[in-house]
């Protein structure tokens, strides 16, 4: 049989043990809570470290990009220095504009609405204009200049394109050229008799031909590469397309100004 003092002692011990267990439990929970917080904190720390790394990397990348942009900007800022000042240009251009206006009025009064041809022998260019309106601008070839002499006969030929005012005398399509003596002399070939078939050359003069008098022609060429250079024998050579347009645009009687 147990004594009441033993019971009380047992109860006291029990309650003490219970309280102590609660304290232990409480402490264990606190430890768990701190542990959880520590874990979270560690994650946060990791995240922040990671973020800092990313930011640093991005910053470096942006720095590099910024440097590259600065180089590009410096290049672009230097570019305007390559271009000339405009103000002087504009002033001069205005003056030229006025001069051209005056010239237009003078020429326009004389030519009215006539269609005519201009041949620039220095630039090897041909223009077709109606009044002051430009209808066609084309590369051409004018006389190469110089003389060709035939030592055998003493004859010689002049291959210049004379400057002056000419007129379209007649024009024809698909001309067949009879090679003259000078062509054989130039090619250092024996000169055949006048009616020899060797003299007949088709296509040499192109699809169209315009005679501007004094023995000078506007015709085509097989060697369109040479257009723009003075290589002809005095005539004005044109490319096939330009020649066709000139043929169709320029009427007989139209003036041809060769300068």
């Amino acid at each position, binding site marked *: 049989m147990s004594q009441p003092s033993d019971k009380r002692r047992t109860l006291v*011990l029990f309650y*003490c043990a219970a309280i102590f267990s609660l304290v*232990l439990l409480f*402490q*264990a929970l*606190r*430890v768990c809570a*701190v*542990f959880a*917080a*520590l874990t979270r*904190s*560690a994650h946060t*720390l990791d995240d*922040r470290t990671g973020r*800092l790394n990313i*930011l640093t990397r991005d*910053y470096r990348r*942006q720095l590099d*990009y*910024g440097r590259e942009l600065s180089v*590009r*900007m410096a290049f*672009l800022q230097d*570019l*305007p220095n390559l*271009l*000339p000042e*405009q103000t002087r*240009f504009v002033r001069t*251009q205005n003056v*030229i*504009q006025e*001069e*051209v206006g005056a*010239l237009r009025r003078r*020429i326009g009064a004389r030519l009215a609405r006539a269609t005519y041809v*201009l041949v*620039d022998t220095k630039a090897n260019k041909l223009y077709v204009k109606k009044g002051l309106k430009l209808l066609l601008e084309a590369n051409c070839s004018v006389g190469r200049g110089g*003389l060709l002499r035939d030592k055998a006969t003493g*004859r*010689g*030929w*002049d291959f210049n394109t*004379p*400057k*002056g*005012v*000419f007129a379209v005398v007649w024009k*024809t399509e698909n*001309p067949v*050229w009879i090679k*003259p003596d000078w062509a054989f002399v130039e090619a250092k070939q024996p000169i055949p008799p006048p009616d020899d078939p060797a003299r007949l050359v088709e296509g040499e*003069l192109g699809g169209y*031909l315009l005679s501007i008098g*004094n*023995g000078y022609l506007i015709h085509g060429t097989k060697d369109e590469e040479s257009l723009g250079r003075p290589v002809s024998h*005095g005539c004005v050579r044109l490319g096939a397309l330009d020649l066709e347009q000139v043929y169709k645009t320029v009427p007989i009687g139209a003036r041809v*100004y060769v*300068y």
Partner: protein
Amino acid sequence: MSTDAAPPAPPPAPDGTWRPRLAAAGAAGKLALRRLHSGIYSACHRPLSALETGAAGLALLALLTLAHIRMSHRLQAAQADSYRLNLPIEAADTALETIDNLNTLKAEDIEQMKSAMVGLAKKQKKYYEDRLALSEERRQLEKQLDLIETHLLVDPALGRLKIMRADQAVKEYPFSGMVYLGGPSPSKPLRTAFITAKEYFAHPQRGDVKIQDGKIVWTPPQIGNVSRSDALGQYVVFTSTSLILHAPSTAQAAHAAYPHWCLPMTVATAKKIYDAVYIGTRISVAPGR
């Protein structure tokens, strides 16, 4: 207990070598292990006293408290670290944002500059092309005007030949009288002529182009040593009339025999006139002769 009894010692080897010692050590080990097992068994089955339980509880509490303290410290340190990281992160964020903004501005500037450069280049190109076109047209118009307006005015009474540009005399050259050579003077007075050919040396044969049986026959001007060349010499300007401008001929007799209106002039004058006139240039002869 029989389990506590020590095993009987192995009989000593007759030769006294390592075998009996090894057997003795094995037996001692087994004995120790057996005693440990029996101790654990008896401890587990022995009821704990309140004091022992309390001591174990206190120890556990102390451990937990210690763990809590250590972990709290760690937590604080981690939180402090985390907090400390906030500053560089914020600074980096700000710096990144700033540099990003700067770069964006730079990029925008560059784009603007590029478009401005494109515009500028196009504008410059247009200026350049306009100017070229204008210069080209001016050249055309000036040359055309020169061709149209240039004409010669011959005044036989004064012995002057003027190169005119519209109504203005550009140049004036002397010549010694206007004479007709190679025959009797034509009754019809010479008033107007047009230049039809310019020949550095008078060609024996003029250039020609004709259609012969539907085919083109073209002969460029020929030069040569024939009477026509001899008679007219150098810098020969033929006109639509019998007036011929040329430098003095070395063949006097041939010159005198060649029928033409002649304006005797020096080689230098003939050259200047030759260079200044064009095919189609009008020549007016002032009355008075």
